[in-house]
C-alpha cells in the first residue's frame, strides 16, 4: 500500500487539507470577533492547557498507578528519566534544541542499552 505513488499522494493531500482546515477555520469563522473577551480568554489559557495535555498524551504508556500498584510499563522508567532531563535542561538553559536532543538521545540510549 505504501508503495503505490497515487495512494500516497492522495493520502498526503487528505492530511494536508485536514491540517490546513484546522488552521484556517478561525480566520474564516471569527474574523470579526478577534477582540471579543471570550476569544482573548481562550486564546490566553487554552494553548498552555493543550500543551500539557499533549505531554500527558505522549507519556500515556507510563501509568504509575494502573492496577493499584507501582507499574512503570515497558520503557516507563526510561521515559520518566528522559522527561525529567528535558524539563530540567529547559528550565536551566532555555535552549529547546539542547533539551530535545539530549532527552531523546538519553531515552534511545537507555532503552537500547538496558532492555
Amino acid at each position, binding site marked *: 500500500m505504501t508503495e503505490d505513488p497515487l495512494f500516497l499522494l492522495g493520502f498526503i493531500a487528505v492530511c494536508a487539507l485536514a491540517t490546513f482546515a484546522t488552521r484556517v477555520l478561525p480566520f474564516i469563522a471569527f474574523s470579526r470577533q478577534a477582540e471579543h473577551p471570550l476569544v482573548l480568554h481562550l486564546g490566553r489559557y487554552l494553548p498552555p492547557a493543550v500543551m500539557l495535555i499533549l505531554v500527558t498524551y505522549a507519556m500515556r504508556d507510563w501509568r504509575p498507578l494502573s492496577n493499584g500498584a507501582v507499574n512503570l510499563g515497558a520503557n516507563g522508567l526510561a521515559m520518566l528519566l*528522559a522527561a525529567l532531563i528535558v524539563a530540567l535542561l529547559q528550565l536551566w538553559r532555555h535552549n529547546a*534544541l539542547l533539551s530535545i536532543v539530549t532527552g531523546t538521545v538519553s531515552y534511545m540510549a537507555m532503552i537500547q542499552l538496558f532492555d
Partner: protein
Amino acid sequence: MPVMFGYLPLGAAFGILAMDVGIPWWAALTMSLVIYAGAGQFLAVALLANQAGLMEVAVATLMLNSRHLFYGLSLLGVFSGAGWRKPYLIFALTDETYSLLTSHRGPVKKDHTMAIKLSALNQLWWVLGTLAGVMIGSQLAFDTTGIEFVLTALFIVLTIEQARRLRRWMPFIVAMATALAALALLPDRHMLLGAIAAASMILLIQYRLDMRAPQQADAS
C-alpha cells in the same frame, strides 16, 4: 533564536521514522512541504504503517490538529492586515511557530514581515531536517529505536515555555485534571480530543464566572 533550530532534529526524526516504515523519501519530503505539522506527520506515518483508510486519516488528523483552532483564535488580531502574507502565515501555523509568535509580544506584535520570515525559516529547518532524516534512515546500520521520544520532548519544552510566559497555574491544573480523567475514563483513541474538549469547557465556565464577578477577575 534557538527555538527555531528545534525543527531540525525533529524533522530528522520524522524522516528516519518515515524511512523505517517504508515510506519513499520523496513522499516524506512532500509531507513536510505541504502538510507541515509536527505531531500530525508523526501520526500520519503511524497510520500509513497500519494501513489506515483515507477517511480514518482525515478524522484523526482533524482531531489531533484541532488545537490549531485555538492558536488561530488567539492570533486573529495579530494576523489582521497581513495582506498577501496571511495565507502562508495561516498555513505555517505549527505548535512551534505559534509558540515563537506569541512569545514576541509588545513592539513586534504586528510586524508581519518578521512573522513571515520566522514562519518560512521554521519550515525551511523542518524540510532540511526531513531531508537529513531520510538520508540517515536509508543507512541500515543505525538503530532508531526510541526516536519517537523526540515528540514527547518537544511537548515538554513547549509546555515549559508556555508556563514561563503565562506565570499562572490555573490552565495547567485544568489540563492535568482533564488529561488524567480522560486517561482513566476514555479509550486510548479518544483520550486526546476528550481531554481538550473538557479543558475548553472548564475554561468557558470559568470565563462565565469571571464575567459575573468582575472584581475578582484576576484572582484565578
